């Protein structure tokens, strides 16, 4: 077991608790809260450092210590010594592998502050976890192994820390005991880091030479490094200014989470104050509508407040009846935030499934949830070299810049000004998974530059001239299912009935409009999006549009459905089992796909997501093409 002098403060604390618990409680009631992350590579000693902070601040109880001693012998990597890392390695599977694989939150507290540490893994594939941990942190401790110096991982971690807007950076040069507490080793690393940090925009950082294992410069100044005259790590953590204080100086903004209506006489708007402060009598504006009102009360069970400040969850009432609901933002009247529907954003992709440009996702920011699409990336950042790379999509752990368009305008501020109104998550509409995080950089003001041209002849006028109701008959199904055959028959029948139709066929469109697209998932999404836009223009023109595309993904079919007027989109699933379609193999494509000559073939190595509730389902093992066509025409005409 290593021995460290118990910090003197702990003795004082213990004495105070024993003698005057009320004085102790009074002191602790006024503690503030600092959230920080530790980042480092595998073996930089992150877990050991956190274990040490817990140990030195007396957060480890006797039974945990006993368990730690027995665990250290069983799993430890420090021989007979206590392995502090075991204190913080949580899940059983990780313990066996000797690595942490997720974000874990740890708590400790001193006389001045309570601390929440996000312990984030350092290895290559886990950018996702570090970004998650950094999103709530005021400060980052970047660990460097004194023997190894500034590594590729150090650069990546620093870049992410800066990207997530953390302004307080500590460079903890660890394992100083293993380099003989050598000042030159420390100075060289600090110099190397300084030039790198400046290049990515980290203006300032606090370098501290430490040993997590031995306890040097953690809570007490190290006798082994008399050449170091700066603060200990704990001193710095206890005194660094908090972000929440800076947030209070900004203009008032509160995203409305919930409207409180216990009875007809009371209407309160509940939310967490993101920035600034507010008092009864202050003039405010509700965004995005821009309507003005005045704060009447700040309601709490313990009586009304005279002021509410950033970081508090409050319930505000207005002096008059102004529309305001969940997702709106209440802001100080003379300095409101912006409203826009197209942005440049930095995206961190967090899912195994790559991003699909043009596919609609949910975007959630503060209390606003809207449908949004992400355009093809402008570039991806190589987080090791910081070079910009041209890419077609974002894959797991990719970070890059792209244009984000929302289905309707949202209230926002650049992330650099407000984490609450600039940070968002992207949610897959089908799996509901959180697939990405993003930070809005600025709005592109599309709405102001490209106006919608209002036309004098309306779509209903054109439809009336054609004497028909426009519709989209959207055929979907496997290759060889019989889509084109049946679609052709349907068009012939409608033509004979004097209907104005147009058939968009997958193969034909790929010879022209979409000849630049291949068969990757991203290209398939774009293929369908374009076809959807064309179909929409044709329905505007009053036509009955018939389309025959494999269109394997639910999300894109829904995208097209959402473009059309209600009831206009008729999804027709030509349902043919894979083995039947494959046995037909009219174009010989299945054979090629099985032979590996054709990649991304639906049903073979690319998925087909069958419609869950199509308007029409045709079972081709049960119906001839002629019967199917009659059935569809009946559905349309009746």
């Amino acid at each position, binding site marked *: 077991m290593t021995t460290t002098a118990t910090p003197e403060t702990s003795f004082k604390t213990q004495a105070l608790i024993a003698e005057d618990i009320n004085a102790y409680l009074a002191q602790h009631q006024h503690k503030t*809260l600092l959230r920080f992350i530790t980042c480092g590579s595998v073996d930089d000693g992150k877990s050991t450092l956190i274990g040490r902070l817990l140990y030195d601040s007396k957060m480890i109880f006797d039974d945990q210590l006993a368990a730690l001693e027995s665990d250290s012998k069983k799993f430890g990597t420090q021989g007979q010594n206590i392995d502090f890392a075991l204190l913080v390695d949580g899940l059983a599977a990780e313990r066996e592998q000797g690595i942490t694989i997720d974000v*874990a939150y740890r708590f400790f507290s001193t006389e001045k502050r309570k601390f929440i540490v996000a312990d984030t893994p350092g290895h290559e594939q886990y950018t996702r976890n570090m970004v*998650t941990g950094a999103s709530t942190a005021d400060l980052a401790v970047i660990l460097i192994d004194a023997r190894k110096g500034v590594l590729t991982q150090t650069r990546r971690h620093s870049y992410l820390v800066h990207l997530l807007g953390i302004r307080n950076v500590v460079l903890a040069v660890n394992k100083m005991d293993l380099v003989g507490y050598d000042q030159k080793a420390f100075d060289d690393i600090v110099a190397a880091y300084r030039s790198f940090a400046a290049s990515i925009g980290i203006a300032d950082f606090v370098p501290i030479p430490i040993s997590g294992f031995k306890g040097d410069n953690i809570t007490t100044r190290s006798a082994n490094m008399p050449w170091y005259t700066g603060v200990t790590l704990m001193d710095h953590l206890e005194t660094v200014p908090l972000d929440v204080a800076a947030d209070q100086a900004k203009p008032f903004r509160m995203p409305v989470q919930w409207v409180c209506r216990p009875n007809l006489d009371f209407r309160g708007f509940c939310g967490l104050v993101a920035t600034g402060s507010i008092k009864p009598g202050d003039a405010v504006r509700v965004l995005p509508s821009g309507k003005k009102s005045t704060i009447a009360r700040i309601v709490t069970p313990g009586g009304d407040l005279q*002021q509410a400040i950033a970081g*508090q969850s409050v319930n505000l009432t207005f002096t008059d009846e102004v529309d305001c609901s969940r997702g709106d933002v209440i802001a100080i009247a003379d300095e409101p935030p912006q409203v826009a529907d197209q942005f440049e954003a930095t995206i961190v992709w967090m899912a195994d499934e790559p991003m699909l440009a043009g596919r609609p996702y949910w975007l959630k920011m503060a209390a606003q949830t809207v449908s949004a699409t992400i355009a093809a990336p402008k570039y991806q950042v190589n987080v090791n070299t910081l070079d910009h790379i041209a890419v077609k999509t974002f894959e797991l752990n990719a970070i890059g810049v792209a244009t984000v368009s929302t289905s309707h305008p949202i209230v926002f501020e650049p992330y650099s000004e407000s984490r609450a109104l600039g*940070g968002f998550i992207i949610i897959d509409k089908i799996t*509901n998974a*959180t697939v990405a995080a993003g930070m809005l950089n600025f709005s592109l003001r599309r709405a102001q530059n490209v106006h919608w041209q209002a036309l004098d002849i309306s779509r209903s006028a054109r439809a009336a001239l054609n004497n028909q109701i426009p519709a989209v008959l959207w055929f979907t199904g496997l290759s060889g299912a019989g889509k084109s055959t049946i679609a052709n028959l349907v068009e012939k029948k409608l033509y004979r009935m004097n209907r104005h139709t147009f058939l968009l066929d997958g193969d034909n469109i790929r010879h022209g409009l979409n000849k630049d697209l291949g068969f990757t998932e991203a290209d398939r999404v774009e293929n369908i999006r374009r076809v959807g836009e064309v179909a929409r223009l044709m329905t505007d023109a009053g036509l009955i549009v018939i389309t025959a595309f494999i269109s394997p993904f639910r999300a894109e079919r829904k995208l097209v459905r959402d473009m059309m007027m209600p009831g206009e989109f008729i999804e027709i699933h030509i349902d043919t089992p894979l083995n039947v379609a494959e046995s037909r193999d009219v174009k010989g494509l299945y054979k090629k796909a099985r032979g590996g000559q054709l990649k991304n073939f639906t049903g073979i190595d690319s998925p087909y997501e069958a419609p869950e509730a199509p308007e029409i389902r045709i079972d081709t093992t049960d119906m001839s093409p002629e019967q199917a066509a009659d059935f569809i025409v009946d559905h349309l005409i009746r």
Partner: protein
Amino acid sequence: MMARGRSLTHLERLEAESIHIMREVVAETERPVMLYSIGKDSAVMLHLARKAFHPAIPPFPLLHVDTTWKFKDMYAMRDRMAAESGMQLLVYINPEAKAKGINPFDHGGLHTDMWKTEGLKQALDKYRFDAAFGGARRDEEKSRAKERVFSFRSANHRWDPKQQRPELWNIYNARKAKGESIRVFPLSNWTELDIWQYIHLENIPIVPLYFAAKRPTVERDGLLLMVDDDRFRLREGEVPVERSIRFRTLGCYPLTGAVESTAANLVDVIREMLLTTTSERQGRAIDHDQAASMEKKKQEGYF
């Protein structure tokens, strides 16, 4: 708590965060419920809920998954708090466990499994709740340190560590498929000391068993057990002895061990807590089963 143009204290920030979480759940789920286990963490959670929705009554019921083996004082406190809050109290008792007479004396681990794990699943299914608030804290146990605030469960209530969503900033993704549900932990970032300090500061009522008093006890397998009623089966040679005891954590008796103490008021309890050198969950038999046992239980659906 009041704040006037100054840094918020850690308790004010924790309070604001918990309230924010509760309001998100109410806004984004269809049928939320608050699991109420009557302990000190539940007391704080309920207090925060009342603050979050004031002057409205919290727009969800309280659910007590009863094992029928709680201390008498706990049932009294439960009924009192439900009445005071004006919230609907649902008490669920697993009919199968009741029929089989499952009890902590004869059935050991099965007692927790049947009454709590199975009972909770049955209750959530019965009322079709899609979100359940629980009072678990990340500081309680190692595997909980990685638990999300919004913890997703499959339609059969299983917790899959790989399916949990990243949580960034204070944005929570509450979307889920039909049948899936969320366990929400608004006290995730509170520590045991925070809980006690908040109870002190806000004057929150808690079960008297947390305070020391003379109570009939026996010592068994290293735990100090309280003889709460005549269902307690004494082993041969065991004679209840009056001791000044209190509980640091409240579960089922006799699964919950007491500690000898003279701390009869809140301030003394906090002092004792601060000077003590064993961690909170040691008083609960459930954790001693095996290493990483909490994680296993969680995968099976225990809160």
